[in-house]
């Protein structure tokens, strides 16, 4: 078998594939489409996110506390809080530019501390439903919290406020940093005093540690993704295996048998061209996996090699099946008969993780099931370099042995039938 002829045969097949791009695009499209669909499943539409405008006409630390409340989790996952002046805020609400506008009037802080009436205004966007309702609910909770705080520690806080304000008033400004610090300390003391009433001591909490889960338990989508790649590779392998019938129909197989180039060389070239195509698709699919499903980029080289080896093994298996068929049509039917049970049982259609245990156990013993598990081990970084090396050796050795059987059959009964 001349290496130059193998390369010529591979180039010939790549040129033929390039002239028939639809088949290749279909193979390429399968993992792309699946990746897209899985990506959409993974995203699940996402949480709604809106903008909350705060027009703070007071400028005290209490009015700041309102806008800060919206900036804390979990509200911060729903709202981008933006400070505006009142007029601009109303203008933007008219344009539907935000979910809600909170207007805090001048004197808000003093009124809260002195337990005086104060009017907060909340402007809601009528074109939205969920986020404005959340803003309204949150503000309602805040008002109630202030009410109960007044009942529990209002008198003490007011006294402290008057005292601190009198001290600060000498400087001509109430909301100095010293004032805020003193007032903060007073609030803390008040809370400590009432905490024995607020935290019932009769309740004893026994903390039970839940069973430890793996630090990085793979999601369903990331388990499903390698299965999908394998399914795409099955279709590719079937397409590649079908080429022996084209060689036969075009008479080129018989001419090749009569040439010194040898059928083994022709078939090796075919596999080499197939390996290039498989590598391209593997690279694309695993890049999608790394970009969207969190597989480590470092797993790409081993993953690609593994997929190429698996693709070649599948191609040689399906080619061998084709070579025992009596016609191209029969070959297609026969490969489908082999392909679909292998896809179903071998974890390419349903991941092993969702199969009944007995079925998964059988599936993992099929060639594609074993190869799929190997790919997962690489992608989830569970396999050592040695294990990957041995697995790759098995894949390529298996492909080579099956290629020899295919070549024997190709130049024998298949070509002459």
């Amino acid at each position, binding site marked *: 078998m*001349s290496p*130059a*002829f193998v390369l*010529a*045969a591979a180039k*010939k097949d790549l*040129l*033929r594939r390039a*002239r*028939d791009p639809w088949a290749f695009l279909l193979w390429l499209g399968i993992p792309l489409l699946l990746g897209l669909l899985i990506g959409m499943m993974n995203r699940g539409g996402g949480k709604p996110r809106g903008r909350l405008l705060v027009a703070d006409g007071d400028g005290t630390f209490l009015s700041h506390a309102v806008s800060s409340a919206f900036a804390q989790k979990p509200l911060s996952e729903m709202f981008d809080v933006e400070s505006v002046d009142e007029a601009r805020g109303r203008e933007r609400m008219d344009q539907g530019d935000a979910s809600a506008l909170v207007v805090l009037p001048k004197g808000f802080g003093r009124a809260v501390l002195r337990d005086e009436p104060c009017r907060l205004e909340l402007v809601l966007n009528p074109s939205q439903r969920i986020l404005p309702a959340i803003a309204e609910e949150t503000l309602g909770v805040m008002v109630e919290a202030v009410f109960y705080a007044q009942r529990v520690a209002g008198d003490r806080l007011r006294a402290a406020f008057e005292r601190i304000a009198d001290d600060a008033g000498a400087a001509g400004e109430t909301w100095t940093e010293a004032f805020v610090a003193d007032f903060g300390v007073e609030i803390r003391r008040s809370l400590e005093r009432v905490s024995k009433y607020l935290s019932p001591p009769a309740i004893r909490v026994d903390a039970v540690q839940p069973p430890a889960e793996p630090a990085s338990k793979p999601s369903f989508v990331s388990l499903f993704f390698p299965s999908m790649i394998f399914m795409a590779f099955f279709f590719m392998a079937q397409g590649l295996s079908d080429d022996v019938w084209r060689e036969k129909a*075009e*008479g*080129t197989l*018989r*001419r*090749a*048998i*009569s*040439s*010194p*180039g040898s059928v083994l060389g022709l078939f090796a070239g075919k596999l080499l061209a197939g390996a290039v195509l498989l590598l391209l698709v593997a690279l694309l699919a695993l890049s999608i996996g790394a970009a969207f499903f969190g597989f480590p980029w470092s797993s790409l080289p081993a993953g690609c090699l593994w997929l190429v080896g698996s693709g070649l093994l599948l191609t040689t298996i399906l080619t061998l099946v084709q070579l025992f068929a009596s016609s191209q049509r029969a070959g297609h039917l026969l490969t489908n008969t082999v392909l679909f049970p292998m896809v179903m049982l071998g974890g390419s259609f349903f991941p092993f993780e969702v199969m009944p245990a007995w079925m998964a156990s059988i599936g993992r013993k099929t060639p594609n099931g074993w190869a799929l598990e190997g790919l997962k081990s690489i992608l989830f970084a569970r396999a050592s370099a040695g294990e990957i090396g041995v697995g790759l050796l098995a894949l390529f050795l298996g492909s080579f042995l099956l290629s020899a059987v295919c070549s024997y059959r190709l130049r024998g009964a298949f*070509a*002459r039938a």
Partner: protein
Amino acid sequence: MIQVEELSKRYGDLLAVDRVSFSAPPGAIFGLLGPNGAGKSTTIGCVSGLLEPSSGRVSVLGHDVRTDARAAKSALGIVPQELALYEDLSAAENLSFWGAAYGMPRADLEARTAELLRLVGLADRAREPIKKFSGGMKRRLNFACGVVHRPRVLLLDEPTVGVDPQSRVRLLELVREEARGGTCVLYTTHYMEEAETLCDLLAIIDHGKVIAQGTMAELRAMLGERDLLRLNGTFPGDAAKKALSALEDLEVVQASPEQLTLSVRGATKRLPAVFSAIAQAGGEVRETTLSQPSLESLFIRLTGKELRE
């Protein structure tokens, strides 16, 4: 040269080739003439190494096609009856690939590809996928792929079947050029005229057996000076055949109630006697065709049937 000795090929109960022997020298066009199913393609298949002979020996330039297959294959060029081309590739790419299959170096291959494309009249369409080509163009390219590596032995299996007259003339001229260059050509056909005008040596094959072989002159001599007389009409029973058999220098080659084929020396002078004998036997002649000695008349004389049957 090609040496075929006692070659037989059996498919189950069918003996497709029965102890065929012939020898084709360098620079000669050796024709295998016979009707469809006579065993011509099977013989070519055994010579090319595509088929395994049941018995006998085939050698190409002294290399046994079974025991020294690689050397034999390297010397052979094959133009199969059916096209053997990649439809998605261009003419140049097809030539380039088949040249590589014979181990041609790249530089030589490029020059040879350009030369052949010019020779077969496809230079201006060299880069187009051949699926856009006409049947005649594909046939010419099929021929070019068979000779791209300058084989010393060329096998052509009915290369002009289904080819338009213009392409046929061009193809036959290309075959002659190969032979003039010293290539040994084995050419199968069922076209009499093609075999008569093209071949230096001929073997007539029927039912897997060679029934006659030699140069055109030698084959004509087998007929002697006999003409072939074909009579159409009504010839009831065996009466006419018996009456004609009684005539001197006349042989009834084939007889049916509607047609008689006779091999006659000096047929023009013997026509009145022939008509008279038929009339006396109760027959009636409606149409007469007289042919000079030819391959066709030889084939009919040897097999009792026409080549196109």
